[in-house]
């Protein structure tokens, strides 16, 4: 085995960065080298930011979002439509919807999907909390923004069943042709879904 090129502190940093998505040992090494070269401008502020985030980051007890306050910034926003909750699989989906400005109501992060293979059942997701929110508050509509995968849609159907008695209208996202999509390049499933969801113009 080759001996380490640098001291243990830097090797440890490289090892940790290599565990991040999109980075391998080589790219982590390059990133660390870049950080050390720009110590004042990048490395020290990054270390402080990481330390602050580690200290303050928490999961919102209402919606499951990640923030530095509880309830999170989204849940504390009084301008949002209190009658609408958008259910998503992961925090990344919430950020994507917020980026697009596509939803003006509140959110509920499930924390995954039901998966028989991975042994993820209803109790492993925050479905119970969603049902509570729908029963307790002024919620009138729930939008199930799950991924268009078999597991995602199976979870959506399960939630629909659970919300049967909550007296809320349950919607799901449309499936079909993406913006900029060419029919010739779409898979059969998307094409059939788009055809079934055709609309009168």
């Amino acid at each position, binding site marked *: 085995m080759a001996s380490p090129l640098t001291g243990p502190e830097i090797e440890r940093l490289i090892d940790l960065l290599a565990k991040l998505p999109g980075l391998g040992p080589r790219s982590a090494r390059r990133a660390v080298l870049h950080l050390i070269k720009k110590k004042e401008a990048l490395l020290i502020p990054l270390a402080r930011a990481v330390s602050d985030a580690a200290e303050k980051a928490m999961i919102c007890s209402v919606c499951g979002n990640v923030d530095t306050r509880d309830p999170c910034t989204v849940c504390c926003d009084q301008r949002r439509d209190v009658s609408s909750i958008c259910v998503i699989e992961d925090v990344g989906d919430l950020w994507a919807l917020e980026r697009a400005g596509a939803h003006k109501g509140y959110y509920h992060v499930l924390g995954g999907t039901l998966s028989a293979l991975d042994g993820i059942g209803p109790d492993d997701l925050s479905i119970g909390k969603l049902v509570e929110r729908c029963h307790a508050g002024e919620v009138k509509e729930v939008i199930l923004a799950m991924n268009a995968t*078999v597991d995602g849609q199976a979870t959506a159907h399960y939630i629909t069943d659970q919300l049967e008695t909550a007296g809320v209208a349950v919607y799901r996202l449309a499936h079909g042709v993406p913006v900029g999509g060419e029919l010739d390049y779409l898979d059969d499933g998307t094409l059939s879904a788009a055809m079934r969801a055709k609309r009168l113009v």
Partner: protein
Amino acid sequence: MEWRDQGIVLSVRPHGETSAILEVLTAEHGRHMGLVRGGASRRMKPVLQPGNSLTLTWRARLQEHLGTFTADLVKSRAGMLMEEPMALSGLLSVCAVAGALPEREAHTPLYEALEILLESMDDADIWPAVLVRWELGLLQELGYGLDLSRCAATGEREDLVFVSPKSGRAVSRGAGLPYKGKLLALPGFLMGAQAGGASMQDVADGLKLTAHFMDRYLFAPQERTLPDARRRLVELFERRQAVAGGGRPGPGGPA
């Protein structure tokens, strides 16, 4: 090592950031797994959804290696079934149950029957009965077939309406009625008595029958229980049945 075959996706799990481990039921090579490079990509994700039919090429240096798959889509079914909760639940159930098959052991009739089952899933009136038949076929294919040809007690070939949960043999109405509470109901459509669609009660009885023997012969020996997806299918079916009013009474019930 290299082979080419047709297969149906049973499950996919991510492997690293870009690849996926694919589990398929193939026509000639049975339940098989392999790595799909780029399987987590935007292009491949819709292809690698449970229920889809693929043309697969498997390559490995040695037979016992996991190997890699290259996959081309033949028929996309997942997208079509996503909107129908029962059908989606049925799909997840058969994929989970097929996962109990021994790996790399060819069961061509079972693969062909699964193709037929998945093709029938856009017809809500027939697929639940086809699913029960497929599960019964799976038990038979693995050597645990039920003997539904004659009564275990009297040898009668007519009016067989029960199955013994111990022996897996049919029991006639006359011989079985005193032990009704201990026997499993044998729905008529499994005897070929009904040419048309089976009633909801028939299907419910069939699901209970196959669940009992799959649990006993397939899952219990592997120290596993019936998959959650299969249990959820039954729950969903029972809920539908309750809403629809129950279908006809089971065997030995009020005439």
